[in-house]
């Protein structure tokens, strides 16, 4: 087991030594600063104020760090987060095959399944680190610019509307982060599985994103509401239910179970494909 963690450490070293691994972190910081700046535009503030007024609340009470952080995260994490997760996951195996480094590794007495487990563990760690970075940096920037205060949550697509005291708001924010990190593993697993098939890294990433975007598009078509519970994006977006008291914990657990079942199936395909593949020069 110790050797596994040593090898995992090296896998992470390889991953984080590459510049493209850091792009996601950089882009999110820029995006957050951009959204924060745009929120200060009078027209944007007016729109926000009107929404609160319609519900009998005052803008000054909810122009807070946690509210701004939720705004930044909820509108970016699936699309941008999905993009960078797909980029890294799609690269993990396919890029090493393309570069020829995987052949160097496969000369060693390490089983293919162990190698796959190491790569997938790296993928999981990257996803969790990125999601927590997105949430952490949003919250930090929000608190720095707007200060602490109540959390106002509004997510029209999921029908979530809520107002929380600062402490409760932060706890729900943290719980939502954990859920989303676990849910986004499905995007990682999809990219990772495609990366294990015989295709170029860019192809694996593009297919992953295409599936993710197509899934999201299907979700917005009203006639497909009946199949919506079986769409990935529906279940990934359930993290916003942490801000809705009317939703039971079972509903969240069911979404996670659905996503984990998808992950398990994809991993089975990845393992079978990787195990049976010929690695030529």
């Amino acid at each position, binding site marked *: 087991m110790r050797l596994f963690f040593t090898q995992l450490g*090296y896998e992470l070293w390889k991953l984080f030594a590459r510049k493209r691994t850091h792009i996601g972190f950089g882009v999110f910081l820029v995006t957050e600063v951009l959204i924060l700046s745009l929120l200060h535009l009078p027209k944007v503030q007016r729109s926000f104020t009107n929404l609160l007024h319609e519900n009998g609340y005052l803008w000054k009470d909810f122009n807070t760090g946690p509210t701004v952080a939720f705004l930044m995260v909820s509108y970016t994490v699936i699309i941008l987060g999905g993009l960078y997760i797909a980029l890294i996951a799609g690269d993990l195996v396919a890029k090493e095959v393309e570069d*020829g*480094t995987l052949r160097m590794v496969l*000369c060693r*007495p390490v*089983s293919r399944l162990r*190698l796959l487990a190491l790569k997938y563990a790296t993928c999981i760690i990257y996803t969790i680190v990125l999601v927590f970075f997105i949430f952490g940096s949003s919250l930090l920037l929000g608190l720095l610019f707007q200060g602490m205060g109540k959390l106002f949550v509004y997510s029209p697509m999921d029908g979530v509307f809520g107002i929380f005291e600062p402490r409760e708001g932060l706890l729900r924010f943290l719980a939502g982060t954990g859920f989303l990190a676990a849910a986004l593993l499905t995007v990682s697993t999809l990219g990772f599985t495609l990366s294990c098939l015989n295709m170029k890294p860019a192809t694996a990433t593009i297919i992953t994103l295409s599936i993710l975007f197509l899934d999201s598009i299907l979700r917005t078509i009203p006639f497909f509401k009946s199949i919506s519970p079986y769409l990935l994006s529906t279940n990934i977006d359930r993290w916003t239910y942490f801000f809705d008291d009317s939703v039971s914990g079972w509903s969240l657990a069911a979404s996670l179970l659905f996503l984990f079942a998808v992950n398990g199936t994809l991993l089975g395909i990845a393992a079978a494909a990787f195990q049976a593949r*010929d*690695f030529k020069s």
Partner: protein
Amino acid sequence: MIRIEGIAKKFGGRPALHPLSFEVRRGEIFGLLGHNGAGKSTTIGILLGQIYPDSGQASIGGCNVHQDRHGALSRLGALFEAPAFYNELSGWTNLRILTAYSRPLPRKQLEATVEMVGLSGRIGDRVSRYSHGMRQRLALAQALLPLPEVLILDEPTEGLDPEGIHEIRNLILRLNREHGMTIVLCSHLLTEVEHLCPRLVILREGRRAFYGQWREGGVRRVRLATDRTDDSLALLQRQGLLTELFPGGEALLSAAANIPEIASYLVQAGHRIEAIGRVENRLEEVYLRALQDVKEESSA
């Protein structure tokens, strides 16, 4: 030490290897020859467990490569023709990463190997800054860590300067003599194989064109000097004792003939023999003849 038994492989319906068998003995330097597309890389890929054969099996030290991967590959080090590394990391980190997939090794062992391949001064540099020759040396270092029983070298001197080629050749000999290492040398440089490998297999279009000791057997070349060499050679050829004549008094013995027989025939015919003896095969001739034979066989 290495046993290849009837391995065959097709890629997309096209045969890359026809059933191929050969054996590499413990402690020998064995050559694997053939031009591009001959099946060398497929053979090595199968031997390293990276390509699954359609039939047959490969084993190293008695361990089947595909059934007991750990047992087989823990005895082996390999160097590829175009070694790939993690370019953004240093040579040293690359070595640590690659060896961790076998087992983590003490720093001293890594340093000694780096010294042995002549990369000490630059091992801390990023691999992206390495020349082709330096990458080749790094590839050799990783293949030697941990010290394997079997070393597979695919074009090990590719891209090296003459001094580097000489160093690597000496290193191969030293590893073989001092550590009893079994070495499989794949090279398109016949001189390289000629110097190092007494036994070899030659592949052409996925078929075995030659296998065994190349200096003896196979081609039967003699050199003859008499008081009238040209006449003597012509006479022997007319009698069917020689099949082909070369400049410098050299000729090929027919399958049925041998040296004492042609000597006795010449003496009886009144020729005075000044010198007669077997000429060691030249690898180039063995190689070309073997390829020609396979070509004729396949066209037939």
